[in-house]
């Protein structure tokens, strides 16, 4: 929807109380506004990070009861009471999210359902505080017109906050953990932390709507906060369109107005909801908003219009080279990994100096990828030690190792499909430095400045690496060769000390391999990071490597210069079989 469309919609909604004196219309409109707020929050969780909650009625209830009780029993000012309600919902959301988001899919559905049922149970049981099944009465309420305008303004605010958030480093981080958790971790993002923040934000939005709900009605009871309410929240978002700004608006309007238009069919109301949910899963997988927006790009971060606007930054390709007298970059000692009875690595010891390309070759199943997974934290070694610049890194989580300067690519390129090439690189560049989430919500000048700088740097890096012309294309439309190169650029954007490449030439055409060769050679010649290269293309390996290690059956059988390894009888035997 265009800015003009939004303005027209907002004006029409704001003018409603002046056009009609019918309080019923205003009340229905206010309820649609509340649903917009909740669905906008759920959009952050489900639309951006891809996690489903079936318990947000619990946060709606926490917001409503906190605001109501503070104003009724403690006599607080409604605005202050609502703010506290939002804060409490966000806090409980963070705690529930931190616990729940260790699991996903049906397990997460279970935790959130359980949370909702527990909240509902507490509302009914804790009679002295909540009034039990009877609920809370005589909550102070403004005039219906006042409530309507307030809720309308808050709904607009909610949408605006989410738009700002999506356009920030946080927004990209949300989509990154959704599209590829392992890639996000390999860039220094803690997927669990990022998702927990999204969960907490969505809880805060639901809490705000709950507080407004209490002051709109003047009366609340546990009946309004059941599992059905949670499902309705999710349905509004799904039907409207997950991930789209207009989604919550479309969904809330349809789900609030449709049953009112069919008042004679109240018995069919839930059947209608169920049918809408089923229909939207079948035929509108990205909702009404998604169906209308089909084919239109949803770029957020754009490359700067003029190529010269951002200066080429010197250190952009890696950390400052490690001083020759400093500690060894990476020391792998006696590392062993077994999967059940299968030994993947046994007694592997390697030492990587500060610079150059260290190739690891070997037959299929020799343990090469396992070695990279151990180095980047995706597989915990059973034995042995790993020291990066004299820090032990074995058994640390991937994002912690990434933050120490280890970047990697994957055998099948793990790009963030819905982000553009530029945004993919920007995720790597920002890494864990996402800034304040509040500033991102408000779109503060500092956040905008940082975004412009990031866009400039990312565009400059893409140009340096020869991918400038693809910057604004979504990653999932790029051909395989470009995807692999983009993945390398994204890894470099984290300014690593050590870059791990897992078969970067696999599946590339000879011309593409030539380009890769040039890219790696340039990295080695420049001030790039040290590289551990797992690769099968011997010509490439022998041409660009400073040192080659050969793995066979989980053991290092040779380690030395490309020339010496090529002549090593043990290596020849491993590749060609024992001489007769």
């Amino acid at each position: 929807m265009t800015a003009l469309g939004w303005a027209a919609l907002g004006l029409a909604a704001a003018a409603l109380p002046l056009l009609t004196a019918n309080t019923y219309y205003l009340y229905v409109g206010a309820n649609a506004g509340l649903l917009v707020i909740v669905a906008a929050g759920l959009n952050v969780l489900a639309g951006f990070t891809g996690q489903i909650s079936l318990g947000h009625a619990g946060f709606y209830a926490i917001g409503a009861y906190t605001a109501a009780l503070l104003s009724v029993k403690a006599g607080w000012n409604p605005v202050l009471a609502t703010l506290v309600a939002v804060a409490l919902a966000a806090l409980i959301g963070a705690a529930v999210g931190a616990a729940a988001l260790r699991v996903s899919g049906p397990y997460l559905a279970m935790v959130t359902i359980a949370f909702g049922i527990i909240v509902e149970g507490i509302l009914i049981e804790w009679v002295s505080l909540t009034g039990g099944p009877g609920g809370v009465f005589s909550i102070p309420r403004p005039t219906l017109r006042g409530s309507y305008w307030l809720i309308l303004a808050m709904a607009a605010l909610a949408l605006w906050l989410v738009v700002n958030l999506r356009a920030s480093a946080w927004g990209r981080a949300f989509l990154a953990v959704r599209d590829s958790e392992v890639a996000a971790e390999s860039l220094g993002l803690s997927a669990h932390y990022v998702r927990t923040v999204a969960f907490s934000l969505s809880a805060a939005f639901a809490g705000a709507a709950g507080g407004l709900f209490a002051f709109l009605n003047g009366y609340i009871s546990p009946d309004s906060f059941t599992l059905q309410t949670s499902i309705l929240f999710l349905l509004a978002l799904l039907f409207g369109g997950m991930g789209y700004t207009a989604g919550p608006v479309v969904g809330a309007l349809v789900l609030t107005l449709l049953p009112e238009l069919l008042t004679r069919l109240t018995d069919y109301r839930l059947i209608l909801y169920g049918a809408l949910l089923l229909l939207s899963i079948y035929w509108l997988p990205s909702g009404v908003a998604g169906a209308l927006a089909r084919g239109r790009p949803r770029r957020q971060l754009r490359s700067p219009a003029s190529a010269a606007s951002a200066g080429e930054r010197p250190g952009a390709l890696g950390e400052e080279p490690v001083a020759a007298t400093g500690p060894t970059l990476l020391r792998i000692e006696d590392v062993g990994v077994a999967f059940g009875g299968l030994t993947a690595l046994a007694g592997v010891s390697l030492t990587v100096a500060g610079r150059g390309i260290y190739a690891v070759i070997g037959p299929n199943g020799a343990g090469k990828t396992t070695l990279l997974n151990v180095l980047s934290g995706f597989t915990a070694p059973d034995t042995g030690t790993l020291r990066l610049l004299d820090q032990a890194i074995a058994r640390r989580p991937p994002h912690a190792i990434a933050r120490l300067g280890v970047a990697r690519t994957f055998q099948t390129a793990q790009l963030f499909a819905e982000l553009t090439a530029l945004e993919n690189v920007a995720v790597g560049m920002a890494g864990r430095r996402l800034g304040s989430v509040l500033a991102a919500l408000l779109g503060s000048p500092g956040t905008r400045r940082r975004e412009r700088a990031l866009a400039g740097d990312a565009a400059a890096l893409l140009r340096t690496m020869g991918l400038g012309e693809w910057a604004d294309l979504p990653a999932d439309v790029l051909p395989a060769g470009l995807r692999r190169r983009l993945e390398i650029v994204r890894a470099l954007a984290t300014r690593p000390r050590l870059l791990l490449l897992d078969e970067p030439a696999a599946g590339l055409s000879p011309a593409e391999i030539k380009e890769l060769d040039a890219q790696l050679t340039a990295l080695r010649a420049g001030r790039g990071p040290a590289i551990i290269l797992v690769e099968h293309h011997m010509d490439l390996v022998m041409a660009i490597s400073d040192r080659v290690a050969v793995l066979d059956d989980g053991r290092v059988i040779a380690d030395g210069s490309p020339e010496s390894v090529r002549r090593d009888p043990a290596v020849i035997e491993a590749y060609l079989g024992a001489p007769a």
Partner: protein
Amino acid sequence: MLIQLVVTGVALGSMYGLVALGYHITWATSRTMNFSQGTAVMAGAVIAYAFAVALGWPFLPSLLLTLLGCCGFGLAIERVAVRPFFRASSPAWLLSTIACGIIVENTAMLFFGKDTRAFPSPLTQRPILVGGAGFYLQELLIPIVGLLLMGAVQLFYHRTAYGKQLKAVAWNAEAAGLMGIHIPRAVMTAYALSALLAGVAGVLLAPVLNVAATMGTIIGLKAFAVAIIGGLTSAPGIVLAGLGYGLVESFVAGYVSTGAREIVGFGLTILVLVIRPWGLLGARPTRRV
């Protein structure tokens, strides 16, 4: 009091286990499940009520038709809500089965009404008194039938040729498919069997809990909690978790309050998920990069 609580707990717990086994069966074959399994419980009770009480048919044909109806219900759910999204990475099947559940439950309510209706059974006519505790014969019948059925399911999977084929699908669908096992049919069988077990639970519970269009939802949710606690991949874990859940629930309801029952039960579920996400006896998943 104590005996009464144990009898009630074991009776309900065995039913949670039976319904939860249904989640396990479809999860193992297809990595999907009917999230509204509770509606199959309700369907069993309502169909049995329609034949045995409303139409006054004799017990055996009523039961037979009910079981057939439940199998058909499972097949319909599989066709409408699961197969189009089979093995999709998105949670589409989760939401579509919830949607079907809402539709079925409320459609049943149109015909059945909003009231709860009694389901007379010769086993709930007179309570038996044992040392001051009163309970119905039906409450003894429930766990016996439940445990026998769960045992039968295990025998089917471990002793019959077709059961072994289904196990093979659960173990490695791709390899099983290459060995000539018809995967879509295996999934259909799993859904029919899963709904059948839930339907039996509905029939057994009807005389104790009475029949209502909304009776299934909470049973289905608790059974799901039981499946998660026991471990979705472990049938023995689920049976034990079911009994445990039923006993805890019964004791909390007896000594604290019926409201606290759900708080404690679902609170424990969250606790287990946080500490052991793969369940008490489930297989710990390995991370793949």
